């Protein structure tokens, strides 16, 4: 067999996982990674947490050491853009007009922040947070700032709000809907987190949307909200969700929904093209509808689908089968999520809410299908297994903390 070329478009978790898993599974051909970023693959979660707070410096961000690419013979190109795919000729085209052939193409193009199209959105002290370059800029600006306005009560917004309180800034969060983290969390837990943020001094304004961002004569800024009231601040951070980067795939005729649609092996609708990461929507065996392609936007989903896609590329296909999980750090609490919220019919509380150490278990009939843990990592770890093994539990047993959660697992 002649040497095969695996060409990876992207330079973050999915791209790196694709490359390293392909090598791990025995791929002996060429691996080329084309990234449009300024830095080799790095951790994104700390950008809104420990990196922004200063606890972790930039040296701690790279996902692997520099020698990794050499040792594994991964040809990494930075600041390079793929502008088109020609699936018939199995070629990609770069912005400089040159083309390159592939045997396998992996689209790991990620996502971009959803833009809020209001007047003033492009002003200098208005930030979106996705890349290390974005985070560096924001971090620098925070040094001389005293007030920040965060638009969007999602994970990014609330994590930034937490860090800014730790740094001593006045923080206002504007959320357009009637609760924070509504897409991700049960209502009761959203209310709990909101109360915690308030205790920490974050002002959260619900049912409040930003209409305009203005620069005042003294150089400060104001975010004008729907009732006309100005929220005065020095910096604005917008965190209103992400959009999958699927333009390349769409233009090449790949099936897309919200995300590039793949199966559990990362297969797209076009032969020899796989996708993984925040750009890929794929069916999840633990979802209420296991056929529906979902865009999970998590490290876990990214890693596990990229591994599955790499297994396909080397001819030893092992489909995705993991229980989804996710985490967030805000103030002094750790939130961990296992399973998928949708499909949970009722919720059972286990633990001590006042002590801020508890989990909410989402049930479908008598099975646990999701778990939301606050400062309870053991609950989270065991819940992942309980969901995976589809174990039935009586609600009264689940509520009883004298019964160890582990005891519900099947004995091996």
């Amino acid at each position, binding site marked *: 067999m002649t040497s095969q070329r695996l060409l990876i478009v992207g330079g973050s978790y999915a791209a790196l996982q694709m490359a390293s898993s392909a090598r791990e599974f025995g791929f002996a051909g060429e691996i080329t990674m084309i990234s449009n970023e300024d830095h080799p693959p790095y*951790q994104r*979660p*700390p950008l809104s*947490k*420990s990196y922004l707070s200063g606890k*972790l410096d930039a*040296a*701690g961000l*790279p*996902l*692997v*050491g520099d*020698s*990794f690419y050499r*040792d594994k013979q991964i040809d990494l190109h930075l600041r390079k853009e793929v502008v088109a795919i020609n699936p018939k000729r199995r070629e990609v085209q770069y912005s400089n007009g040159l083309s390159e052939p592939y045997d396998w193409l992996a689209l790991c193009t990620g996502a971009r922040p959803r833009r809020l199209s209001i007047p003033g959105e492009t002003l200098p002290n208005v930030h979106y947070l996705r890349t290390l370059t974005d985070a560096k800029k924001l971090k620098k600006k925070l040094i001389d700032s005293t007030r920040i306005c965060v638009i969007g009560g999602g994970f990014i917004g609330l994590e930034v709000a937490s860090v800014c309180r730790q740094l001593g800034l006045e923080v206002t969060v504007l959320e357009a809907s009637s609760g924070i983290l509504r897409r991700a969390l049960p209502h009761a837990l959203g209310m709990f987190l909101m109360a915690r943020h308030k205790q920490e001094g974050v002002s959260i304004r619900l049912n409040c949307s930003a209409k305009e961002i203005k620069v005042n004569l003294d150089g400060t800024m104001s975010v004008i909200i729907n009732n006309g009231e100005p929220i005065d601040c020095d910096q604005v951070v917008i965190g209103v969700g992400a959009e999958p980067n699927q333009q390349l795939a769409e233009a090449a005729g790949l099936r897309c929904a919200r995300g590039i649609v793949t199966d559990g092996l990362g297969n797209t609708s076009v032969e020899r093209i796989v996708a993984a990461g925040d750009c890929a929507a794929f069916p999840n065996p633990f979802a209420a509808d296991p056929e529906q392609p979902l865009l999970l936007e998590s*490290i*876990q989903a990214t*890693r596990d689908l990229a591994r599955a896609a790499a297994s396909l590329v080397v001819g030893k296909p092992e489909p995705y089968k993991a229980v989804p999980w996710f*985490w967030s*750090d805000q103030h002094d609490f*750790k939130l*961990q999520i296992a399973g998928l919220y949708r499909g949970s019919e009722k919720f059972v509380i286990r633990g001590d809410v006042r002590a801020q150490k508890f989990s909410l278990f989402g049930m479908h009939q008598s099975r646990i299908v999701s778990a939301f843990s606050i*400062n*309870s*990592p*053991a609950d989270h*770890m*065991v819940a992942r297994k309980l969901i995976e093994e589809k174990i039935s539990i009586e609600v009264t047993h689940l509520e009883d903390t004298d019964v160890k959660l*582990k005891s519900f697992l099947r004995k091996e």
Partner: protein
Amino acid sequence: MPKVTFVQLDGSSKTVEVKAGTSVMAAAIQNNIPGIEAECGGSCSCATCHVYVSTADLSKLSPADELEDEMLDCTISQRLDGSRLSCQLILSEDTADLTVSIPEAQV
């Protein structure tokens, strides 16, 4: 600079030198030491950076906090006396030459 030695299952080992303030996990990642997954990147959320600290070195480290202790109950490889999550072990002049062993599996 503090040093840390990683001992693999087959007995082979590698010693690396890192800046004070680096975690054992980060030292492993920066030096491409196999067997430390660190899926969550070092925020004590996943229990995939489990290591066994040598008995002689245990006293050099501050003990595991409550969250780490709970996570250690959930590692894939067996929890032993020396079990720690390497993301929580910060290297300093006090930890000097630390030796840790990599467990059989992380996930």
